[in-house]
C-alpha cells in the first residue's frame, strides 16, 4: 500500500500494462517526449520506445481512428485525447467506428481500445475547456464509460479497461490529478463497473460520480453533525450503471439525492432519476432530487465559474430539504 497522486496511479497502471503485454501501446498529443499534459505517461517513452509511446500531430479524429484500426489487428491501444473537449473532433472515430465495428461485423472484430480523456470543470479554463460531455457518450450503445474518483480506482479501472476487449472511455477529472490516496497494487479489484459505497448512511442515498463524489462525502460529514446520515454511492461507471447497488441503498433509505457536475438538462442525473423511479418508486418517501450544474456555458470569471457547479453547501441544503419535505408530508 502506497500513497499516490491520481496521475501517478494512472502512470503506474500504464507502466504495468505496457510491461506485461507488448500489444499495448499509447498515443496522443504530447504523450511521449513531454510525458503527457497531466504527466500520466511520464517516463514511458524512455522505457518502451516510440512505437509504443507515440506523439501524434493534432488530428484527434484520425489518431483516435488509428486506435480503432490497430485494435482490429489485435493491438490494445490507449489513446489519450488531451481533453474531453477535443473528443468532439473525434466523435466519428468513437461513435461511428469504435462503438459500431464489433457489432456490425457480427462480432468478428473485438475492439480492445481504451480512450483516456481529462475533463470536467477545472480552474478558469473558459467555456471551451470546461465541459462535461459524458452524456453524449452514454447514449451510444457499444461504448463503456468509467469515471474513477480515487487514485485506487484510477489504477484499477485503467488496467481493467486496457485488458477489456470492448471500447472503454476512461474519463479522468482534471481537479483529481493531484489528489493523493492509498493505492494497493496487490488487492483484488472489484468489477470494473461496480459502484462503491464511499460512506454508509441510513437516512438518504446520494448517487454521484467522479469529483462530485468527494464533494458529496464532504457534505455527508457536515450533515452527520446535524444528525442526518447520508449514504454516498460513487457509481465509478456511467455505462453500464450498477443499478443494483443504487436500488438496494434507496430501498433502505427511501430517499434519493443525485449530485452531478454535469449540466442539469438532459444530464446524467436525468437518466439516474428515470431509471431509479422505474425500479423503486414505491420505496421512495419523496421525489428524487437532483443537484446539478447550471445550464450555462462555463463563465471564465472564477466566482461565477464556481457558482455554476454544485458545491458542498448546495448538496447539504438539498439533503436537508429532501429530508424536511419528507417530514412535512408525513405530518
Amino acid at each position, binding site marked *: 500500500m502506497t500513497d499516490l497522486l491520481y496521475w501517478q496511479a494512472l502512470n503506474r497502471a500504464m507502466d504495468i500494462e505496457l510491461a506485461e503485454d507488448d500489444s499495448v501501446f499509447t498515443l496522443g498529443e504530447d504523450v511521449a517526449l513531454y510525458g503527457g499534459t497531466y504527466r500520466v505517461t511520464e517516463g514511458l517513452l524512455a522505457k518502451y520506445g516510440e512505437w509504443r509511446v507515440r506523439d501524434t500531430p493534432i488530428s484527434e479524429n484520425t489518431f483516435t481512428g488509428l486506435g480503432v484500426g490497430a485494435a*482490429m489487428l489485435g493491438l490494445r491501444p490507449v489513446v489519450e485525447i488531451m481533453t474531453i473537449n477535443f473528443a468532439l473532433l473525434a466523435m466519428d472515430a468513437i461513435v461511428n467506428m469504435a462503438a459500431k465495428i464489433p457489432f456490425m461485423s457480427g462480432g468478428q472484430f473485438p475492439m480492445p481500445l481504451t480512450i483516456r480523456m481529462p475533463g470536467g470543470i477545472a480552474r478558469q479554463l473558459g467555456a471551451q475547456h470546461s465541459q462535461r460531455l459524458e452524456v453524449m457518450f452514454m447514449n451510444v450503445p457499444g461504448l463503456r464509460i468509467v469515471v474513477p474518483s480515487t487514485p485506487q480506482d484510477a489504477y484499477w479501472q485503467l488496467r481493467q479497461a486496457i485488458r477489456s476487449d470492448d471500447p472503454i472511455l476512461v474519463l479522468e477529472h482534471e481537479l483529481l490529478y493531484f489528489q493523493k490516496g492509498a493505492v494497493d497494487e496487490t488487492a483484488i479489484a472489484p468489477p470494473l463497473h461496480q459502484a462503491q459505497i464511499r460512506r454508509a448512511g441510513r437516512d438518504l442515498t446520494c448517487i454521484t460520480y467522479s469529483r462530485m463524489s468527494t464533494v458529496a462525502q464532504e457534505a455527508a460529514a457536515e450533515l452527520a453533525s446535524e444528525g442526518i446520515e447520508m449514504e454516498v454511492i460513487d457509481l465509478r461507471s456511467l455505462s453500464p450503471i450498477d443499478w443494483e447497488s443504487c436500488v438496494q441503498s434507496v430501498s433502505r433509505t427511501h430517499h434519493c439525492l443525485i449530485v452531478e457536475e454535469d449540466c442539469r438538462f438532459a444530464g446524467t442525473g436525468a437518466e439516474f432519476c428515470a431509471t431509479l423511479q422505474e425500479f423503486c418508486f414505491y420505496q421512495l418517501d419523496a421525489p428524487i432530487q437532483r443537484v446539478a450544474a447550471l445550464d450555462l456555458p462555463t463563465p471564465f470569471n472564477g466566482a461565477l465559474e464556481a457558482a455554476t457547479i454544485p458545491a458542498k453547501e448546495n448538496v447539504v441544503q438539498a439533503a436537508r430539504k429532501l429530508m424536511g419535505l419528507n417530514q412535512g408530508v408525513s405530518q
Partner: protein
Amino acid sequence: MDSNLMQAMLRDMLRARAFEEAAAQSYAQGQIAGFLHLYPGEEAVAVGALHAAEPGDYVVSTYREHVHALVRGISARSIMAELHGKKTGVSSGMGGSMHLFDRERRFLGGYAIVGETFPIALGAGYAVGYRKLPEAVICFFGDGAVNQGTFHETLNMAALWKLPILFICENNHYQIGTEIHRHSAIVDVYRRACAYGIPAEQEDGMDVLAVYAAAQRALHRVRSGDGPQFLELTTYRYRGHSMSDPGSYRPEAEVKAYEAADPIAAAIHEVSLKYPSQSELAAAGPDCIRQFFDRCCQDGHIDDAALQRLQSEVQSEIDDAVQFAIQSPQPTMEDAQAAFTQNRRFETLL
C-alpha cells in the same frame, strides 16, 4: 503475362458484373432493402488492384465494396446473404450492404461515413509497422473522400511514420451528384499526395492490366519499406450513386462514352484470339497497332467457346448465391445480442 492470372482476372470481372446486376434485380424485387451502391464500370480497379495483393494483406473499403469483398475471396453466397440481411451473411446480417467484414480474409470492412477508411487503414498500417511484418494495407476511397479532414490527417501520419499503406483512389468523378470540378480545386487527385511526400501515380482505371501493374509496383515499394504509396485510378460508374439515384445529373454523352470503354469488354477483347477488326486497327494508330497485334497473338488465352463457358459458370454461381440468400434464415434478436456481447470473453460486467 501469366495465362492463369489473365483468365482469373477476367473471371472476377465477369463475376463482379453479374453479382451487381443480380443485386440490382433483387433490390428491384424488394428482396434487398436499404442503401445499395453498385460497382458496374469500376471492375478493373478492384480486380486489378486485389489480384496484385497477397493473402496476408489487409483491405479497407467503402460502402461500395461488394466487389472488393468478392474479389478478396469472400463467397458470393455470404455477401449476397448479407445484402439480404440474413443470418448466413458475412456480417451475420448485422452489417448490410455497406458493412461487409471478414476477419479471416483480412477484410477490415466497408465504411459508410465518407473518409473513414483512412484512419482504419492508418491503424492497421501502424499495427503492421510496429510488428515489422511484410504485409501491406490497401485503402480504397472515392474522389469525394479526399476533401475530408481524415484524408489529410492520415496521409500526414502515414508518411511521417512510413507506414505500409497503399492508398487507392477510385476516381469516378462524382461525389454522389457533384462532378469533381465542382467539388475539388485540384481535380488530379494524385497530386495531393505530393503535399505529404507520398509517391503517387495516376492510371487508367478502365484498363485492368494497367491497374494490376501499377498496384504491383506500388505494393512492391510498400513491402520494401518505402512507406505509403498512392494510386489514383480514373474510372466511371455506369449506375447512379445508389439504387435510389437515377444518375440523371450526368450528361448522356459522358455515360455513353465510358460505356464504350467498358473495362469488361476491353478485357474480353484483350484476351481474345480474334484478329482486330479493320476499324480497330485504323483507330489504334501506327504504334498501337503493332502493340495490339503482338498482344493478341502472344497472349492468346481464351477463345469464344471458353468465354461462353466462363460466363455461364459465373452466372450459375451468382444465381446460386441469390437462391442461398433468399432461402437463408433471418437473424433473431438473440443473434443481435450475441454479436453485441461476443467479445466480452471472461468479463461479467455487473
